[in-house]
């Protein structure tokens, strides 16, 4: 159970950190300050902890931090900033798609993974893409609108 020095590539930055083997990527990220990655169920059911690993959306609660060495990790805060938001982040704000905001980072990660592969998704494809992300507040309507809005805006660029 000895900690090991691992190198994590997060949002384009390199971190060297000593971690025990039983630390999940979720907690490694949060302890490094990436608190935009949320802890929900820690069982792979809610999607609040979703991040991109080499462009694939995954539950970071089910990945061990040591398994993430050599992988490009992208979290919501790596997509954009307050000064320079990603179109998805802007659209979520404009569409009123965040109430408590807890599901939002994970939703945006799943939406990014969708739009990377399918820039013009149908509503059914959007619903399917976020089917691993639970929201208790919004009823999903504005979230779907936000993703449609972002897709349209990204196409116009």
């Amino acid at each position, binding site marked *: 159970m000895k900690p090991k020095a691992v190198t994590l590539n997060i949002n384009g930055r390199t971190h060297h950190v000593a971690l025990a083997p039983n630390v999940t990527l979720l907690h490694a990220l949060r302890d490094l300050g990436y608190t935009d990655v949320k802890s929900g169920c820690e069982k792979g059911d809610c999607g609040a902890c979703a991040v991109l690993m080499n462009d694939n959306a995954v539950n970071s609660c089910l990945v061990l931090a040591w398994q993430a060495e050599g992988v490009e990790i992208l979290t919501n805060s790596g997509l954009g900033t307050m000064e320079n938001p990603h179109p998805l982040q802007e659209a979520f704000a404009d569409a009123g798609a965040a109430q408590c905001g807890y599901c939002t980072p994970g939703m945006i990660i*799943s939406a990014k993974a969708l739009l990377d592969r399918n820039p013009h998704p149908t509503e059914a494809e959007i619903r399917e893409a976020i089917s691993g992300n639970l929201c208790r507040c919004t009823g999903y309507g504005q979230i779907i609108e936000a993703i449609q809005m972002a897709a349209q805006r990204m196409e116009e660029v």
Partner: protein
Amino acid sequence: MLPKFDLLIPQTLPEALKLLAEGAPDILPLAGGTNLIVDMRGGHRRPRALIDLARLEELRGIRIDDGHVVVGGGTTIAELMTDPLIADHGRPLREAAARLGNPLIRNRATVAGNLVDASPAADTAPPLLVLNAELELASQAGTRRLPLEGFIVGPNVTLLRPDELLVTVRWPIPPPRSAATFYKIGLRKAGACSVVTTAVLVARDESGSCQEVRIALGAIAPQPIRPRAAEDVLSSQSLTDTAISEAARLSAQATNPIDDVRASAAYRRRATEVLVRRLLTEMAIT
């Protein structure tokens, strides 16, 4: 917090098999972790160490070999959904992959993991059963092949030995003029543990009459099953409504379901009969 364990990260299959041989049975292989990490968090498994399989190239890839589709055990469920060989020669598996878990889970969960975890509701099992899948199991002592049918012996119990890895899953390319499909009943469209799953394959001869029918049923018994009595009724028969209804009835009879939080045994029996009839009818006119 997860319990404490050591994490070993071998670079090759021989290295992994050596670690497994030395550490079995207190050491477990880790692929996608979508079952294992959850089980460990819940206190149901406490291995002394885990072996991360991610770097083993021998577990990756989908190819054709000697008339068979060969799928690496480390292939993710997401990869099954998009691979052209699976689209062409493994349609029921592709359909099952699309219903397994949710997109986040599918990017990590693997075929081998789904089979070795061996939930009675494992979604990849019924499709692979109608494809007549065979498993390649490797250990330091060598390699052996077992049919998938009979590999899962009960809930979360298989014939895999503690020092073995499931390296590949393979099946013969289905005959021309055959059609196969899969259907899942769950309480939700995503993130649902299957209530009832059914897969069928119908193969026809040159004249178009039905030559062979394969049926596989999941979530309706301690392990996924092929209801042979139902299949026998249809071999070398025309797929009339009467014959299909009889096969559906026999399929339901072959189940051994339980009442649980998701559904009653009676529902599972009835739904099995409905799904077998519906899927056979669909394949009969394909």
